[in-house]
C-alpha cells in the first residue's frame, strides 16, 4: 500500500448515477430524524468515489437508497441519465443487474444454510447463464475464484461460515466479478477484516475497476483509506456533503472544518502518509 496509485479525472465524462435533493427522514413529528439531508451527487462511469464520514453521518442510509433497498422521502436518483424506476419487482431485478454491493460484515452477508456453490451459481443465473453446461458454469466459477486468489476446488461443497472473514469478503468480490454490474457499492468492506486482507481486498477492487470499467462507490470512515484509493471524495457530516471533489484537492487542501478534523484524526503510519503536512489552517470557505 505504499505506492500512491494513479488518479484519473472524470469531470465531464458520462454520468452513471446522480442524485438531486436526495433526502431520507425516519419517524414523524418530534421524533423525526433526517438521516440524509438534500444531497446532490454525480458519479461518473469508471470513477472510484469515496464517501467519507463518521458513523451516524448517513453513509449507510445513502448507500441503501442508492441500492434501492430504501426509498428516498424526497428527491430523485438518476441511473445512467434517466430517473430510476424501481416501482415493481421486475424493474428492481433489472436495476440490480446494474448495481451490486459488498457489505460491511462478511459473517452476516451470507446465508449460512447455502453452500458457496449456490451463491456463485445464483450470479451466473442472474447474468442469464442458466442454460450453460455444467462444465462452463464450473469454469466461470473457477475463473471468478482465481481472480480473488481463492481455489474453487477447495471451496466447493463448503459453507460460507467455514471460511475466514477475509476469504468471505474475497468471495463477495468473486460474486461481483461474475455479475459485472455497472456500479459497485462497497459499504466499508474492509472494516471487519484483518490488515493483510484489507490491502488485498482494496487492490482487488482497483483491479476490478481497471478490468471492467465499473464505477465503485466506496463508503468508509477512514479518510486515509479514501485518499489512497479514490479518484473523487465526498465528505459527509450529519446527512450532508460538506465537501467534495478530487481526492488530492479535498484531502491535501481541506476547506471544511469537519474534513480537517477527520484528517487530524488519522494515525501516522509512515512518513508518506503523514498528513500533518496538509494545510489545516487554510481558511474555511
Amino acid at each position, binding site marked *: 500500500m505504499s505506492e500512491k496509485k494513479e488518479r484519473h479525472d472524470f469531470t465531464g465524462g458520462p454520468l452513471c448515477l446522480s442524485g438531486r435533493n436526495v433526502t431520507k427522514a425516519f419517524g414523524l413529528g418530534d421524533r423525526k430524524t433526517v438521516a440524509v439531508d438534500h444531497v446532490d451527487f454525480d458519479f461518473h462511469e469508471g470513477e472510484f468515489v469515496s464517501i467519507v464520514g463518521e458513523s451516524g453521518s448517513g453513509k449507510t442510509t445513502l448507500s441503501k437508497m442508492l*441500492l434501492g*433497498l430504501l426509498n428516498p422521502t424526497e428527491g430523485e436518483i438518476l441511473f445512467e441519465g434517466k430517473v430510476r424506476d424501481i416501482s415493481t*419487482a421486475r424493474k*428492481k*431485478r433489472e436495476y*440490480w*443487474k446494474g448495481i*451490486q*454491493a459488498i*457489505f*460491511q*460484515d462478511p459473517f*452476516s*452477508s*451470507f*446465508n*449460512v*444454510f*447455502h453452500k458457496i456453490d449456490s451463491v456463485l451459481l*445464483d*450470479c451466473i443465473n*442472474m447474468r442469464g447463464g442458466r442454460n450453460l453446461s455444467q462444465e462452463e458454469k464450473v469454469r466461470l466459477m473457477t475463473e471468478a475464484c482465481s481472480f480473488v486468489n481463492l481455489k474453487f476446488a477447495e471451496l466447493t461443497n463448503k459453507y460460507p461460515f467455514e471460511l475466514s472473514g477475509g476469504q468471505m469478503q474475497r468471495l463477495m468480490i468473486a460474486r461481483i466479478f461474475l455479475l459485472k454490474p455497472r456500479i459497485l457499492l462497497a459499504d466499508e468492506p474492509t472494516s471487519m477484516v484483518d490488515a493483510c486482507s484489507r490491502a488485498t481486498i482494496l487492490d482487488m477492487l482497483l483491479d476490478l475497476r481497471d478490468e471492467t470499467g465499473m464505477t465503485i462507490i466506496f463508503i468508509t470512515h477512514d479518510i486515509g483509506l479514501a485518499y489512497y484509493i479514490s479518484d473523487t471524495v465526498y465528505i459527509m457530516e450529519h446527512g450532508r456533503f460538506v465537501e467534495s471533489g478530487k481526492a488530492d484537492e479535498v484531502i491535501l487542501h481541506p476547506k471544511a472544518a469537519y474534513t480537517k478534523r477527520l484528517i487530524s484524526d488519522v494515525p501516522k503510519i509512515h512518513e508518506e502518509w503523514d498528513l500533518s503536512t496538509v494545510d489545516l489552517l487554510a481558511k474555511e470557505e
Partner: protein
Amino acid sequence: MKNTLRQVFHSSKFLTGFLIFAAILLTMWIYPLFNPGNPLEMIGVGTFAQPGTYFSLYDAATTRTETLRLPDADEKRITNLVSDADRAAMIEWFGLMEIDVSEVDATDIDALLDLWLEHYDPSVKIKGMTQARRNFFKRLDKNLRQIRAADTLLVMHQEEEELVEKARITKTDYVNVSDVANVKRLPLGTDNFGRDVLKELVSATGTSIVIGLIAGTVATLIGLTLGLLAGYVGGLADDIIMFITNIFTVIPGFVLLILISYSIGQDQRGASVVAIVIGLTSWTWTARSVRSQVISLRNRDHVNLSKLSGHSLFRIILTDILPYIASYVVMAFILQVSSGILAEAQLSLLGLGPKTTVTPTLGLMMNWAMLYSAHTNGSWWAYFPVILTITLISFSLNLMNTGLDQVFNPTLRD
C-alpha cells in the same frame, strides 16, 4: 444438521422429555397388540369395578384342583373374614364381661377367636344392654363360629326336581388361575359404563395426541404464514395482519373456543373438528413471536444480498428467513401441541369436546368420571391415571421445548 441433532440429544432435559414421550407413544402402539378390540366395549354390568384380576367363580368351581396345605392359610382366611369392626366388638364384649384380655395380643386374631369361643354365652344378660345389642352379639357369634367350622362347600346343580352334587370344595383346594377358563385382568378396573379403563386410556391418549398434533399444526401454519408476511412485507400488510391478530388476542381464546364448539353442535363435533377449532383459536401467539423474529432478520445483510441477487419475495422468505427461525418454530409447535391437548381436556370436561361414544379422549374420560361422581365415591382409577397421563404428556413436551431452547439459545445454557 447431524451435529445439531447430536447437540439436541446431548441436552439432558430434551432427552428426558423425549424418552417419556417415546415411552407413551410405544405403549400406545404395543398395548393394543396384546389387548385388541374396541376400547369402548362394555365388559362389565356394574360401574367402577376395582383394579385387579377377576376370574369366574363358576369356572373355578369346576376346574381341576390341587391340594395345597399352606401353614398360614387359616390365619389369612380368618383375618380376611373378620373385619376390624368385628374385632372391636369382641374386645368391647370382653370388657363388659370383665374378662382379662391383657395376656392376648389384640392383633392376634386366632387367639382372640379362641378366647371368644371359650367364654361367649348367649344366655348371659349384661345389665344395661339393649335387646338389639344382644342380638348383634348373637349374630357375631354365629359368624365367628362358621369361620372356625371345618366344613366343605357343596356346589349343587339343579336337574328337574332334585339337586345333584356338582363339586365339593374343601379348604385345601386350590386352582391354578391359568387353568380357569375365564380370567380378566383389569389393572385399572372399569369405569362407570363397565369399560376397561386401561384400554380406554391407551386409546384416548392416542386420540388426544392426534388432536394436539392437528391443533398444533393448524395453529403453527396460520401463525407462521401470518407472522412471516406481517414481519417481512411490513407496511400495510403488517398493519392489517396485526390488527386481526390483536383482535384475536384480546378476545379470550378459551371463551371463543367454547362459543365455536357450542355453535358447531354435538353431532358435528368429531375429534378432528375439535382439533381444528382449537388450532383456529390459538395461533395468535405464534404469529406475534414469528413476526418479531422476522423483523429482526429482515434487515440482515444476507437478506439484502438475496434481494440484490434478484430472488423473489417467496424465495427469500422460504430460504433466507424460514431456516433462521426454524428452530424457534419447532419449539412453538411443541408448545402448541401441548396446549392443544390441554385445551381439548378443558373443553371435554365442560362437555363441549368431541361427541361421545365414538372415540375416547382424555378429556372425555375425565368428563365421564366427573358426571358419575368417581371423585366422590373413591373410584380414583377412573380419573387419576388420566390426569397422570395428561401431566406426563405436557411435562415431556415442555421438557423437550426447554431443552431445545437451551440448545438454540446459548444464553440460557446452564
